[in-house]
């Protein structure tokens, strides 16, 4: 059986992250889990994961290097360091044992991109129909939305910085689009 860990290649392998004026960056690999469950399960997730998932719609809660992003009324995206996924799945499964829930490892399904700089919101507006003004989309807000033709998870991590989660197969498209938008700024 081939060692898949050895064979793993970045989907943006050919991309030079230093291209453009530096507003775009590829984030290092992360552990990504999609958790779905009723409100009654949240306390146990908070205890096992170390971050209390936000109950307020479209908000992310962060603690250290871990984050829980609200994606829907019963759906959260849990982010952690790359190597932590297997341990986290075991811990959460044990903690939630008698309750019904769904926990899926999507670490390799998507790629993290970062858009930062004074004009980050303007750059994203080239393809994202949301109002990205700091009043309408404050720091800590996160949501699934669209970037031109591809679905993304958009998360404002600072006044002038956004974290994007793009499906792996659409990452070259999203990168190309953002690069073009950066040139057109």
């Amino acid at each position: 059986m081939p060692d898949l860990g050895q064979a793993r290649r970045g989907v943006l392998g050919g991309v030079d992250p230093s291209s453009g004026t530096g507003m775009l960056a590829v984030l290092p690999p992360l552990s990504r889990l999609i958790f779905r469950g009723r409100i009654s399960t949240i306390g146990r997730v908070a205890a096992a994961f170390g971050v209390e998932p936000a109950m307020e719609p479209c908000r992310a809660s962060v603690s250290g290097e871990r984050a829980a992003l609200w994606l829907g009324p019963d759906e959260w995206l849990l982010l952690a360091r790359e190597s932590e996924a297997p341990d986290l799945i075991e811990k959460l499964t044990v903690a939630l044992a008698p309750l019904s829930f769904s926990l899926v490892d999507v670490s390799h399904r998507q790629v993290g991109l970062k858009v930062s700089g004074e004009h980050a919101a303007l750059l994203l507006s080239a393809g994202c129909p949301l109002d990205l003004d700091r009043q309408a989309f404050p720091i800590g807000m996160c949501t699934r939305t669209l970037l031109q033709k591809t679905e993304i998870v958009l998360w404002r991590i600072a006044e002038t910085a956004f974290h994007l989660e793009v499906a792996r197969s659409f990452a070259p498209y999203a990168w190309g689009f953002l690069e073009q938008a950066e040139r057109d700024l």
Partner: protein
Amino acid sequence: MLLIDCPFCGKRPELEFRYGGEAHIARPDDPSEFGDKAWGQFLYGRSNQRGMHAERWRHVHGCGRFFNALRDTTNDRFAATYKIGEERPALPEAQGAVEA
């Protein structure tokens, strides 16, 4: 761009949504007790309303949830959105009226 008020996420651009057909059509509890004609009506019979129409929408590129909406089919205005399972809200006459 047309903004649709998702009951979970608030006002969001139309692009993020998908239409889900007429709302409040309940699946029969016991299909085997249902005659062919009634079954055909359940599958295909729709009110094709001119004016205020209760319909399902899905915030597919957002929270992913289905919800119901009241939309005027003559001018594409959304009068109300509400969660699945909630009663269809009553609208003031003026708002619900259809021009002849």
